[in-house]
């Protein structure tokens, strides 16, 4: 976790080695973006909905401590135990304690990006606990010992033939069978045994309602429900920013979430958990892990409005062509790139640069986070704090001098043109990052300035 990692550009280059795969990845995510557009355009009030959701989230951020207390009191009234965790480590210890109390060494888990952020699986494995991820995509990457590469589509970087091979190895499916229907059914049969035998189930939380103390979990597969309703103990882990004030606000967010995420009108299941079923224990862990500090950063607090739909990833030209793993963070893509530096600025200094600043992410965001503005602002902060690569800093300084001195600019331009026209090998080589995967343009004979001076006289 804390080992040094490669930077985004280097990891993206690795992903780009397989051109067919990159093209498939790119087109598939763009297809999901198009599905999103199609369903969004059916609602004339879409922009009004986004604006309302954004305002609700602003209200939440400005009253977060009050809403947390209201939620805690109401959840307790409903018979739910509420825990508070300052960081990932404390969260993981609470989960482990609950498992130990039950005397079990196994647990089923449905999709939760928060537990990825806290590295829960690794922690529990070290304590001898076997965690089974039950979302199909998450199960696939778990068997392959990889993190998810997308928050909604965890194994979008995998081809069905590879999944067939993986299932042949782990689930004993026939070699060479890569039929999605068949493989899904094999996973269903295997995971059903896990659902029927595990005593503890952990789920994530999509929304928690301060007014009622209930929380909502959205899935298409039904895995959160299968786990929770067959368990003796249900643990729900949530980041503190997942709160909304009133139940009626779910009407706004449930309309936005799945339309933005996958282009569906709603997920198959939107489950509202309010009380444990008779004889069951229900626990909620409220996790901070840097969020309360993040809230104090005026320019960056907007990213706490995120509802984790993944629309910004599906639309991002950089994400689509570099893959989720190149972001080396639980949440990838544009939103991950503005969340990650809050946790660790040095480790994630490369991420705000993994963008063209085209603004498409901000345009599709259902809660109107100014994602591309924040990417730009992070760059300013990172440069000021000295987190930019030395070569880039030096090059920028040279550039600043050249651009501020007309004399140097004219000479440098002339030299550049002469070099490019006469010794193109000097620029068209591997040392020039601009030459990578593109041809350098043909240099003009003269600059505009030279042309103007010549022609003005006429």
């Amino acid at each position, binding site marked *: 976790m804390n080992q040094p990692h490669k930077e985004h550009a280097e990891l993206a280059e690795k992903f780009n080695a397989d051109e067919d795969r990159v093209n498939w990845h790119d087109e598939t995510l763009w297809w999901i973006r198009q599905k999103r557009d199609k369903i969004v355009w059916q609602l004339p009030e879409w922009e009004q909905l986004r604006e309302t959701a954004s305002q609700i989230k602003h209200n939440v*951020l*400005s009253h977060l401590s009050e809403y947390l207390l209201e939620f805690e009191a109401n959840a307790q009234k409903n018979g739910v135990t509420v825990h508070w965790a300052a960081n990932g480590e404390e969260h993981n210890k609470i989960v482990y304690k609950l498992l130990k109390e039950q005397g079990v060494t196994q647990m089923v888990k449905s999709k939760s990006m928060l537990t990825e952020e806290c590295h829960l699986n690794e922690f529990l494995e070290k304590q001898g606990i076997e965690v089974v991820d039950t979302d199909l995509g998450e199960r696939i990457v778990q068997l392959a010992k990889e993190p998810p590469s997308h928050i909604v589509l965890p*194994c979008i970087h995998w081809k069905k033939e590879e999944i067939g091979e993986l299932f042949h190895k782990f689930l004993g499916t026939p070699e060479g069978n890569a039929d999605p229907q068949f493989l899904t059914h094999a996973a269903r049969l295997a995971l059903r045994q896990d659902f*029927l035998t595990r005593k503890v189930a952990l789920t994530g939380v999509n929304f928690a309602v301060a007014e009622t103390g209930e929380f909502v979990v959205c899935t298409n597969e*039904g895995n959160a429900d*299968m786990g929770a*309703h067959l368990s003796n103990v249900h643990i729900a882990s949530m980041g503190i920013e997942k709160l909304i004030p009133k139940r009626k606000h779910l009407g706004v967010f449930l309309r936005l979430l799945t339309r933005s995420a996958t282009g569906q009108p*709603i997920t*198959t299941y939107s489950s509202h958990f309010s*009380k444990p079923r008779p004889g069951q224990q229900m626990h909620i862990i409220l996790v901070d892990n840097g969020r309360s500090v993040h809230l104090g950063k005026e320019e960056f607090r907007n990213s706490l409005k995120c509802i984790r739909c993944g629309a910004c990833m599906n639309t991002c030209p950089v994400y689509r062509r570099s893959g989720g793993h190149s972001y080396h963070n639980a949440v990838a893509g544009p939103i991950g790139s503005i969340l990650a530096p809050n946790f660790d600025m040095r480790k994630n200094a490369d991420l705000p640069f993994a963008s063209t600043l085209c603004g498409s992410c901000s345009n599709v965001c259902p809660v109107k986070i100014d994602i591309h503005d924040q990417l730009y602002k992070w760059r300013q902060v990172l440069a000021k704090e000295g987190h930019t690569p030395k070569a880039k800093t030096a090059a920028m300084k040279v550039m600043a001098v050249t651009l501020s001195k007309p004399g140097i600019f004219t000479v440098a331009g002339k030299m550049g043109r002469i070099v490019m026209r006469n010794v193109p090998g000097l620029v068209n080589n591997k040392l020039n990052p601009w030459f990578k995967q593109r041809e350098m343009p043909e240099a003009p004979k003269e600059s505009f300035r030279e042309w103007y001076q010549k022609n003005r006289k006429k």
Partner: protein
Amino acid sequence: MSSREDILKTLRQNQPPAVALPDTQPFAGMKPVNADQFIQTFKTIGGALYEARDYAHVEEILRADFAAFPLKRTTLPQLSGIADTSWFTVDPHTLHDTEVMIAEALFGVCENGAVWITEQQMVQRAAMFIPEHLVMLVSKASLVATMHDAYVRIAELHNGPYGFGAFIAGPSKTADIEQSLVLGAHGPRTMTMMLLP
């Protein structure tokens, strides 16, 4: 200091100035109820739908279309002639052999084909998720247009907390393998709606 106090203290220091809640009232009642939209949307999300006259008609359809699945269970005493009703208090794990579960939802939502049902109508929470096939009855007269209207209806229907409630919209599904849609992930493989008057 406990983590709880720590977190609250930091939040209070860092919270931005109060921002008022927007009015969500205009969204409710914005659109008319459209039963055809409900029917079409439910079919689009992978469901099958029958318009049934009454419980007797539902039973008739079940006898014809679900004859291949003898292990039927229902939450509805009116259908005890065709499905088992002796499972209400059993260990939910034992419900895993259920082939068809038949229940009745409180209302449906036209814009997304979902129906709302709470623990009271489910009898057991797991019962809606564990069967191979789910058959849901819902009355046409109960339909609401959008999710905003749905939460207005929920507020009217439930005085206090409901324990557990869910919007269910079609069979369980996944597209995690190369974005190929597969019906039948972990929950029911099919969902059939019986739309009563």
